[in-house]
């Protein structure tokens, strides 16, 4: 159960599925490359945390969920929200702080919420949404539903008390929740071995007597397989899981440290980029004859168009009206 899983290229991939996975990873990547440009132009304020490099986790995991399953995330959540099916135009508008954004421009990059997609939000406080995921799973079970909650978080959340409190409760109350840690090895600038006594994060599952698995987070099919098993456990047995997807963020923690050069070497980043999840999957699809170059180029073109539309939509959306400043504090 502890092994890091990698699917061999021999695995037969369905062409429709391949198209869907590749397209979603490309959308997340292209959307964020564009968001970075928009940040540089000052259209997005404050901080912006890019998911680039980690796309296989969000896309692979979401691909085994039902539409009525829930997802909840931390602040590096653009990719999770898009994978769950949110309209890229409204996500971009939210990043721009405009009135047509998912939260009418008031949530911003770190607080994307989409009720229509059962996306329970991005959360800026590290570790703080883990008990919220348990609460949502409790509510599902309480009402006799068979949905599951997928909760993304980073390795930085593991030393927080709420990580441990949540795993304990999820195990104790047998909740249909899948905790998936995207271990990108750095909590902002602090390397995992400088922050955790136990760096094999999946092993914390043993303490709480729940299933724990590690997976190669750069391999979208491997992620899919491991999350699918966890979803089955949650749906059929209402048993929680702790998964660890080993991944890497190619950019800095936020746009404030774009090169992340203080705490990572150029060599390390270069080596990890060789394992770009999009590149790996693209090559596998070509090699296996699942998709052709022309088909992939069409996908890329479609995604580029979607992202351009998203930017145009966000640009055209007005700023929230001034009177909204004091609205929605209490029920009016």
């Amino acid at each position, binding site marked *: 159960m502890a092994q890091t899983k990698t699917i061999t290229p021999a695995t037969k991939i369905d062409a429709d599925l391949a198209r869907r996975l590749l397209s979603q990873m490309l959308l997340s990547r292209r959307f964020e490359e564009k968001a970075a440009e928009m940040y540089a132009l000052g259209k997005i304020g404050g901080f912006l945390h890019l998911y680039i490099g980690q796309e296989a986790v969000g896309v692979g995991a979401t691909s085994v969920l039902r539409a009525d399953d829930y997802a909840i995330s931390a602040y590096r959540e653009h990719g999770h929200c898009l994978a769950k099916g949110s309209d890229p135009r409204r996500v971009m508008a939210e990043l721009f702080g405009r009135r047509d954004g998912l939260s009418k421009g008031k949530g*911003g990059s770190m607080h994307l919420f989409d009720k229509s997609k059962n996306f329970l939000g991005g959360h*800026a406080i590290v*570790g703080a949404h883990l008990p919220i995921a348990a609460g949502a799973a409790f509510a599902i079970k309480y009402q006799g539903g068979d949905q599951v909650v997928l909760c993304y978080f980073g390795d930085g959340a593991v030393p*927080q008390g709420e990580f441990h409190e949540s795993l304990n409760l999820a195990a104790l109350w047998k909740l249909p929740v899948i905790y998936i840690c995207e271990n990108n090895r750095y*909590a902002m600038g*602090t390397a995992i071995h400088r922050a955790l006594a136990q760096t094999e994060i999946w092993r914390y599952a043993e303490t709480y007597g729940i299933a724990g698995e590690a997976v190669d987070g750069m391999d979208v099919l491997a992620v899919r397989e491991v999350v699918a098993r966890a979803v089955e456990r949650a749906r059929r047995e209402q048993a929680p899981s702790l998964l660890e997807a080993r991944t890497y963020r190619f950019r800095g923690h936020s746009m404030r440290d774009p090169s992340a050069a203080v705490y990572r070497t150029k060599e390390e980043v270069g080596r990890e980029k060789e394992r770009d999840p999009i590149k790996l999957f693209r090559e596998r699809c070509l090699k296996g004859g699942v998709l052709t170059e022309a088909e992939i180029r069409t996908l890329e073109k479609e995604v580029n168009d979607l992202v351009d539309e998203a930017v145009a939509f966000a640009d055209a959306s007005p700023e929230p009206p001034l009177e909204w400043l004091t609205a929605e504090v209490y029920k009016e």
Partner: protein
Amino acid sequence: MAKLNMVKALNLALHQEMERDPDVLVIGEDVGVDGGVFRVTEDLHRKFGGRRVIDSPLAEAAIIGTSVGMALYGLKPVCEIQFSGFAFQCFHQIENHAARYRTRSQGRFHCQMVIRMPYGGGVRALEHHTESEEQFYAHIPGLKMVIPSGPRTARGLLVGAIRDPDPVIFFEAKGLYHAAREEVPDEIETLPLGRAQVVQEGKDLTLIAYGAMLRVAREAAQVLQDEDGVEIEVIDLLTISPLDRETVVTSVQKTGRAVIVHEAPKSFGPGAEIAATIMEAAFLSLEAPIRRVAAYDVSFAGFAREKANVPDVARVVAACRETLAF
């Protein structure tokens, strides 16, 4: 004497205090190797090493909890919470422990520690990265709540806070980090806690501000002088709690009018306490109701409307004019 911005001035204070006192240490997320999210702790790790400049795991309650333990033993930790909005994770350790040990043990134990946090707007950020929560800490007996208004006061107050025998919450306005440079003396300079400064004398109205709002207040005072010919007395509080009541009251007894400016939401904010203090001690000197210019009673504005929420020069000028015209 060198011209420093607030980041460099704070950094200088930390370097000098760590050199002076081996019991002073720095702990927080990314304060060491990385040099801090806003670079306030830059080079400390290189100079003093990992024993005294501690990169903690991402665990705010653990940062403050262990610092309380260190302080009980006699060390003097300077903790960094990356943004004030993250401090609710450790609020319990601050409120239940750091603030209470002196009273709880009737002076047998105390916590000499500083908790630094960037706060406030000005960087177009979201919620936890932009809010102003000094009122929570100012309300807690046993804590001191300090907010400098620029590089020189930041340096002097941080030294004062590190040497203060009680726990100090030290807020640093993000909008001021790189806003301006000031002459900061090379030799260690200490500013006493609990002491406000009259930064500009005037006879017509007392304008009370702190942190990033001091610049707004001073600019408003200038506008009122240029356009209305009135003389505004501007007070930089520097310490929110314990409040320097004497400086505030003495000024209002002279001017008869007071306007208070803060970035925290208006209701139950520091302005209410300051206004009550004036009412208690200078009621018969008042020529007009005291006014408060503050953020609206919303938890956050979204970056697109941040400017409309945080007091600006126009709002302060308008409030002063109403007070003067009363």
